[in-house]
């Protein structure tokens, strides 16, 4: 009944899901770093940086991820010759391009989540921090962001889960992850329903524990006020 799984050896079913996990982890880290920077820009005292952050978030949030991912391949790689340090290895190049696109897209959502977290920090905290003479980056880095991060673990978990699901878009540029393998399998095998169920199960296994763990963590780490 499950013969179709062993018929595919490159990538294997596990290999494809492992690619999905790798895409999620790498672009998740990238998005977290870039999103935090964007959030810092959006609340900074320099109007130009605020403008840039706002423009970035509004533009990227309203662009389909598919457009971004396909652009990294057809635009950045083919036209601009961006090889992402892997000029000959197209699989690796596709992977890195997908990570770049996913991180650039997800960062906008990380930024928005963080910004809403910054708003939950009571005014008095920042006032007290400024009263003892901390400057903007100290107030943000030592007082506000640590509390903001703890209060937005829930929303960030949702961003991460959405990212896990969004990695399937990398199939559009031929990255050998779960969606691409499922497309290949259901086209070649007769057991559409079974294959669909296997892949659905795979994603439930990936997203459910993430949601439960981060939900538990957000409850534990929440700043009690």
């Amino acid at each position, binding site marked *: 009944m499950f013969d179709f799984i062993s018929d595919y050896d490159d990538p294997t079913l596990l290999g494809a899901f492992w690619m999905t996990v790798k895409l999620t982890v790498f672009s998740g880290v990238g998005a977290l770093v870039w999103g935090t920077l964007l959030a810092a820009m959006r609340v900074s005292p320099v109007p130009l940086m605020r403008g840039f952050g706002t423009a970035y978030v509004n533009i990227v949030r309203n662009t389909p991820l598919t457009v971004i991912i396909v652009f990294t391949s057809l635009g950045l790689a083919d036209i*601009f010759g961006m090889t992402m340090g892997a000029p000959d290895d197209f699989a690796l190049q596709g992977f890195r391009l997908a990570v770049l696109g996913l991180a650039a897209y997800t960062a906008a959502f990380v930024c928005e989540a963080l910004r809403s977290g910054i708003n939950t920090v*009571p005014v008095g905290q920042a006032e007290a921090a400024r009263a003892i003479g901390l400057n903007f980056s100290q107030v943000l880095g030592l007082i506000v962001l640590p509390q903001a991060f703890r209060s937005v673990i829930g929303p960030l978990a949702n961003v991460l889960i959405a990212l896990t699901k969004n990695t399937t878009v990398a199939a559009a540029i031929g990255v050998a992850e779960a969606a691409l393998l499922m497309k290949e399998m259901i086209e070649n095998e007769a057991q559409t329903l079974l294959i669909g169920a296997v892949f659905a199960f795979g994603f439930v296994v990936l997203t459910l524990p993430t949601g439960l763990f981060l939900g538990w963590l957000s409850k534990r780490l929440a700043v009690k006020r």
Partner: protein
Amino acid sequence: MTSVLYDAPGPRAKRRNVIFSVVFVALLGLALWWVYRTMDDKGQLEWSLWKPFTESQAWTTYLLPGLGNTLKAAALAMIIALPLGAVLGIARLSDHRWVRVPAGVVVEFFRAIPVLLLMLFANEVYVRSTDISSDDRPLYAVVTGLVLYNASVLAEIVRAGILSLPRGQSEAGYAIGLRKGQTMKNILLPQAVTAMLPAIVSQLVVIVKDTALGGVLLNFTELLNARGTLAANYANVIPSFIVVALIFILLNFLLTSFASWLEARLRRSKRGTGAVLGADEVDDLNAAEVGDTHKAGGGGPA
């Protein structure tokens, strides 16, 4: 305009802000200049590549039909998913376990699966077990995928909308002797629908964006797919990407702005309970159930 994080700038801070601005502009300018140089080097700025967009043919043959299909799929998905989502959302609030649990399972299942998998699966099912013509099939598959996913998201919006109403609303309903169904129909739903409107409009943005998935993987001739044919014809990959992205951004920006305008208006209005489900609050629903710290606004007591 001053923020919590910094004081109104004094002379030194003003000077520092100017320096930061100058450095930032320089960096940004450098990046833009680099993009410009690369585009120029690759010949992407030549007028012949951009000229098609000033003529009607590129629009009438490629972009407008593509945009039409995008909007068609999005509208169909929305119209079908909305009642389905309402039913699922209300079923999830049912007092009967045998209604509540299956509805919950369906909603959580389809929310956990990527839309793309749902589309691919639907497409294959249509190939194998129906005789929908291969011209229509991509549209059907895209709409099916979008409906399954968004119905479950909308179900959560409906549930959140009803839960966002003050408890007194339903208590008052029961107090004057209404039954559960009547309370839901006459008291809770009308208010919940108003509260949900901004969230529903912003869900449309997600649907519009997701139609692009069908273009690449199911060969549905929506806007992104139309871009491919256009670029194959005029050999203008970068310009066509820029134009198509602009159309998407403009369309979605209008929807986003409409949603936040609606939200602000509803929050302002004196009528109603003041419960408004904002554009960003739906994703937070699960988090809000576990610990509602991030919504605390100013951070009041408890």
